[in-house]
């Protein structure tokens, strides 16, 4: 287990370093970052001042090391627009995005796992077809369009839910559904496939012969084994959702990280964008790391193989 842990951890660190250097290289995508910052009218002297202030006059590897050292210490740079540390703003907004992501995940799992189980009990039944239809439709629906359509019905026509904002739990209902719906197909298919396989196994037949109740058989005996791959998929999808929440947060004006990212893009606030990409990537790396460790702990075959 320790060997697996070390191997997996070093992989995570290496990926994090690569992501950070890619994020850093965004600085040079537009050519000279000093010109981008100073604008068209900046004189050569202005540009020189900017270069010295932001350290663009040093060699690139040195700049990267400096940037990375500061980032590791929690200093993700200074926002060009807000003129305050990027990290302050990010940590103010992060909880909102996390809350949205968690709500969306709970919604997705609550919909897809029972549906996947029920679909697996009777393959090819009406319910199975219904579940598959939901999966196929879910994958084809553009999340922003789904969000807008919900907004139109629930907030404008029926006035059940608030249109946008992030002040109460009611504001999170539609965004969570819009964000979570997109991942239900994958989770449902995997649950269904896992259940189909487990339900064929010998120990389930034994349990059934023993007279275990149907509910207990499905949810206690079978699901426990079928759910293992779903755990890591859910972790991966949670990471994707946080990254994808930019679209949903923009539509519903939810004051989270995604909305901040969109605002920063509008303001050409590069340090803020880089920091958000970095934070979300690191979060994803940590998430998949813990999911893998959890899986290895649940299933010894993984840590040995």
């Amino acid at each position, binding site marked *: 287990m320790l060997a697996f842990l070390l191997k997996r951890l070093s992989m995570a660190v*290496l990926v994090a370093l690569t992501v950070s250097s890619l994020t850093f290289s965004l600085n040079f995508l537009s050519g000279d970052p000093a010109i981008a910052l100073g604008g068209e009218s900046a004189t050569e002297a202005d540009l020189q001042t900017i270069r010295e202030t932001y350290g663009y006059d040093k060699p690139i590897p040195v700049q990267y090391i400096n940037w990375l050292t500061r980032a590791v210490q929690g200093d993700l740079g200074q926002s060009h627009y807000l003129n305050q540390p990027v990290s302050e703003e990010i940590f103010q907004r992060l909880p909102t995005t996390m809350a949205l992501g968690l709500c969306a995940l709970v919604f997705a799992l609550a919909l897809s796992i029972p549906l996947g189980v029920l679909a697996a009990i009777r393959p*090819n039944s009406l319910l199975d077809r219904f579940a598959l239809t939901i999966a*196929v439709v879910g994958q084809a*629906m*553009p999340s*922003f369009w789904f969000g807008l359509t919900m907004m139109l019905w629930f907030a404008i026509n029926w006035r059940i839910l608030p249109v946008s904002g992030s002040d109460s739990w009611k504001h999170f209902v539609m965004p969570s559904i819009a964000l979570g719906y997109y991942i239900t197909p994958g989770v449902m298919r995997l649950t269904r496939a896992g259940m189909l396989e487990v339900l064929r196994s010998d120990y389930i037949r034994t349990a059934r012969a023993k007279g275990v109740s149907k509910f207990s058989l499905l949810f206690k005996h079978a699901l426990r084994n079928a759910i293992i791959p779903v755990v890591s998929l859910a972790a991966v999808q949670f990471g994707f959702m946080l990254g994808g929440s930019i679209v949903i947060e*923009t539509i519903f004006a939810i004051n989270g990280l995604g909305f901040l990212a969109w605002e920063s893009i509008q303001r050409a606030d590069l340090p803020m964008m880089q920091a958000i990409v970095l934070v979300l990537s690191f979060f994803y790396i940590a998430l998949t790391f813990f999911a893998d460790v959890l899986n290895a702990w649940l299933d010894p075959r993984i840590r040995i193989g």
Partner: protein
Amino acid sequence: MSTLENNSLEPMADAPVLSPGKVMLSHAKSHRGLMLGGLVILTIMLVAIFAPLLAPHDPYAQVLSRKLVPPVWFDSSKATWDHILGTDHLGRDYLSRLIYGARISLLIGFSAMLISGVIGTVLGICAGYFGGRVDMVISFLITTRLSMPVVLVALAVISIVGSSLTVVIWVIGLLIWDRFAVVVRSATQQVRGLDFVASARALGSSTPRILFSEVMPNISNHVIVIATLEMAHAILLEAALSFLGLGVQPPTPSWGLMISDAKGLMFFDGWLIAVPGTALFLLVLAINLVGDGLRDVTAPEDRN
């Protein structure tokens, strides 16, 4: 769903022995999802190709005296058969913009899929065939790519570089090769150990030759399935980027952009987002149905 229909193979006692290709074709023909999706895609493709002939108006022509005409089925004095789907906030014919928008979606979807397909397939084959260090490095690349949020990175890059059709295609193409790589890698690993690869090697075939004429043909079914699914993915991404204002730039007619333009007006005219949204949904649904269908027919073991 109809995707499961093929599980019940009819016993073919007195049927003539068919070639594998013919069996596959007959499976494909009886696959309802595949046929339906194919029909929709074909229609949309024809519409896109013959857009200049089919569009009733110039998609760019603004007639400010005829702003926001509702579609014909609306009970309104403004509704007219001249603008079947109405007009947008600048008085441009909505149907014509929808028809030309199909071109943008298909063009971006197809080109981005080609770019990501080439990158992903090459990486996947190398990782799967050579294994060892090569596999480690490529798996590392895949993990790295997966840990970067696609929409956010795409938006950041496009906002820095500046948006154009080519930029959007390349950015999407360079970001979504991961599924190709993952699937091709595992498919190649399965093929690598088979006898015909070993015999080709024993005959003295060079590595590129083995990869191209032994491995490639045997993983191409996986590649085609992923290609359709990734094309749908790319179309959705383009729509999202255009919706956020950093994809296709106005006045080019793009479905995502049409939804974005209509966003502010949707409280009064909901059909403005319903029309392009439905088109987008139908196209992506059709492509996914074809992808799922092809998988059922050619590579059923990939289904989950």
